[in-house]
């Protein structure tokens, strides 16, 4: 299997995530779409690492996963806090930082 197919799949994944971020209004779904885009980036890194035959792509993908986990922890805590104070998750209604 060629690296091209993996990169094409990653492109599809990234595009779907991008459209989801723009189209969806629920904060949690926007969050999930960001995870999809991070996964697409990881897939590309690993496809190129396989092609180049060294470990640097693996290390970067590893850090991406770690940072995604950290982002999930803090981001979802913020989502819950916003929901508690505003009572909504619609990103259009939560447009200002102040009440």
């Amino acid at each position, binding site marked *: 299997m060629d690296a091209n197919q993996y990169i094409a799949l990653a492109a599809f994944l990234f595009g779907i995530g991008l459209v989801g971020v723009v189209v*969806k209004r629920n904060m949690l779904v926007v969050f999930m779409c960001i995870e999809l885009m991070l996964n697409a980036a990881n897939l590309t890194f690993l496809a190129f690492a396989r092609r180049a035959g060294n470990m640097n792509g693996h290390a970067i993908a590893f850090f991406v996963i770690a940072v995604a986990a950290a982002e999930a922890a803090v981001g979802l805590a913020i989502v819950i806090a916003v929901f508690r104070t505003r009572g909504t*998750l619609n990103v259009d209604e939560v447009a200002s930082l102040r009440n």
Partner: protein
Amino acid sequence: MPRKIVIWVVLAALVVTFVGVLGARMAEGAVLPEIILGPLGLTDALFYLFAAMTFAGAATVALSKNILHSALGLLAALMGTGSLYVFLSADFLAVTQLLVYIGGVLVLILFAVMLTNRITEVKISNASLGLVGGGALLVATVPVLVFVAIATPWATIVPAELAPTTREIGNAFLTRWLLPFELASLVLLATLIGAVVIARKELKQDEPDTSVS
């Protein structure tokens, strides 16, 4: 009762025939994957299977009206990409994907879904906007990326043999990637403190609420 027995007999006959035909073909010297898949190799077939799984999951995330279905679609997409990591000779990252993404991030997202949604009215809370604009964005980005991916003649280097990568990753972490490695611990520390500060406030606000309910 007899109908069930008939079903069983038919099923058993089918299985026996299938195994018999397969065994006969293999005795002639054919390889098992060739019989089932024809010219398409087993690796290719598995790639397309996992790619379809990833694609379907991602589409579910972006299109589903029900937020729980979105979460399950994310599960399928993460499983699919994790399986593809194996084909890219990244076994340790596949395990990491399973441990951190599916075992951690996805569970956290499901927790957040449970915590925030009045799940009975889930369809209202997941409105989407501008499907036309979204479609236009998709048409504008994806073909370009896919064209670049397929048309670019990436330098052809014969891929190395498949080998366990854990040792190499450990080596890379403690030599070239030492600074990012230590910074990752600081990121985790900041995560721990930040998330506890944010969520802890919620807990305090929550106290009188829980005592009532």
